């Protein structure tokens, strides 16, 4: 994985600290061309990986990328599925069974319901596989070397003790998409233990890591301990603590942590993108020089 990965929250008005900023983003990125323009700035700054939710609008972005294979030949996309609000709204409206009927392709679910109570265990994993395929459709022909399960689903399954689905997800992503499965979580220590218990070693995990202990369940000290053990490949997200930490200070902290392979960030303006990339490179350089001297 590359050291710096570009995220998509800013494109879809996801802002953890301000509804006002969120509205401003929603206005700025109303047109797909504005998203592409920002992605091109990121690429020009040396970032070639875009991590994005399987939001409907990403389908349009994929279309643009597919049409220009020369320009995007080194460009990688890390899909994160599912776009949870789509399903959450559907569950409110249709219930859980109704949502499955709506989003699982074909007549699979309908025939399941008609089949009565004796479902085979395999059937539920198959439903998940069909849903993965539905989410992945928009990425056909695009290089997606790592495919992530969104934190709300990873953590829901984690809390419910439904480890078979986490294992099934990893297996299917490898088999069908020849890609590495990734997990987004707000509960790194707990998830890592569960994955290892199920034979998934050195997994790719994207998780909140920042100086202010924001969304680091179990606490910063425990996270730092887990990182020092080098048991997983980490993408650090929410490194700015939702915007609560000055960028320089935040990036210095994350850059200096051991075993953080990549840093994920999102930004809207050219200045912010370029500054962030420069700052990460700056601290990486200092860290490497220190390592050489020692």
């Amino acid at each position, binding site marked *: 994985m590359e050291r710096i990965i570009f995220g998509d929250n800013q494109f879809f008005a996801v802002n953890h600290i301000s*509804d006002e900023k969120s509205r401003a983003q*929603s206005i700025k990125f109303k047109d797909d061309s504005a998203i592409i323009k920002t992605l091109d700035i990121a690429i020009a700054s040396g970032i070639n990986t875009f991590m994005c939710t399987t939001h409907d609008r990403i389908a349009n972005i994929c279309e643009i990328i597919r049409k220009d294979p020369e320009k995007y030949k080194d460009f990688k996309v890390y899909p994160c599925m599912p776009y949870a609000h789509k399903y959450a709204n559907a569950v409110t409206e249709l219930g859980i069974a109704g949502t499955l009927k709506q989003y699982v392709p074909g007549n699979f679910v309908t025939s399941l319901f008609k089949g009565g109570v004796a479902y085979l265990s395999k059937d539920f994993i198959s439903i998940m596989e069909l849903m993965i395929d539905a989410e992945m459709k928009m990425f056909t022909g695009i290089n997606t070397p790592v495919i992530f399960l969104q934190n709300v689903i990873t953590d829901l399954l984690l*809390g419910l*003790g439904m480890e078979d689905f986490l294992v099934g997800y990893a297996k299917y992503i490898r088999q069908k998409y020849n890609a590495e499965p990734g997990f987004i979580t707000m509960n790194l220590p707990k998830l890592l233990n569960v994955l290892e218990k199920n034979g998934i070693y050195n997994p790719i995990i994207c998780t909140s890591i920042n100086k202010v202990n924001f969304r680091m*369940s179990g606490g910063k000290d425990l996270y730092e301990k887990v990182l020092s053990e080098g048991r997983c490949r980490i993408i650090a997200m929410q490194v700015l603590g939702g*915007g609560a930490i000055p960028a320089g200070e935040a990036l210095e902290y994350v850059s200096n942590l051991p075993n953080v392979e990549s840093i994920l960030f999102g930004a809207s303006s050219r200045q912010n993108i370029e500054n962030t990339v420069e700052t990460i490179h700056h601290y990486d350089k200092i860290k490497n020089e220190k390592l050489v001297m020692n």
Partner: protein
Amino acid sequence: MVKVALIGAGKMGLSHLSILGAHPNVEIVGVCDTSKLVVEVLERYSGYKCFPDYLKMVDESRPDAVFVSVPTKYHYPMVKELLNKGVHVFTEKPFCLNPEESSELAQLAKKTGVVNQVGYHNKFVGTFREVKRLITEGSIGEITHFQGEAHGPVVVKKKSETWRSDPNEGGGCLMDYASHVIDLINDIISPIDSCKGSMLKSIYSKNVDDSVYALVSTQSGPSGVISVNWSDDTYRKMSTSITIIGTEGKIVSDANELKVYFKGENLPENYSKGWNVKYVTDLTEEVNFYLRGEEYSAQIDYFINAVIGANDRNINTFDSAWKTDKSISLIKKQSIL
């Protein structure tokens, strides 16, 4: 270990179940749901013991506490049975269909002495907790006006009917959405005890209101406006906010950001004259397991701690939810006049 059972594994129920499942002091002893599909998945993959009948579940699995997350109209009969069995109860909001039912349950809970809590999770949001602290300390002087708002994209087109679109089951924007705003005002300022005028408007729904506009006043005197609309698709998800104007300053807060303006020199600690901005990230305590917002985990931690006797068990009591149901009922009645 606190033995917990859950009735209703829908959207909120599954969220509670996941947080409870990860809780170090909780053992899940039973789940009751009407969906065969949900029961099948929970039994097979989570290993929970599932029951088709909640009374049978309580008798057989002997929980210390039960979570109730079913459509509102079932809260009253179910919670009543549970209280009579002497178990601690956490129930979803809104509490009951009318304040008479809520009052009866609040009294029964007091009599039996069990822990009783309702899922108004905003009280566990860092920014709103800070607003309450500032108001309780009288830091913006005498309150002259407030505005409570909520907007979100729940019903944005004419669509199929669920219990949320049935007024007899507790559906509608007033019961489902505005209840959060009303409960916050009741808690932060004082209970809304009169309604001067209100409009409940349907936009896409056939049988229930999609927006609520009301002029209200509270027990302690301050009056204000409630403006709630769940058919606003310019919002990605529910956004709840409160503005409070006082003689010495003004507070504007949502679940993410708190802005406070102080006129004079008489200031609470860590605030200065003029505008102050604080973020929920500064005001939120870390939780042990995060699923979808610290407040959802925090309210469950609070309930479990109440069961083991580790706190004052005075947040989101049945009594406070009864007052909210009374305020809801006043707004509803005024709209019909």
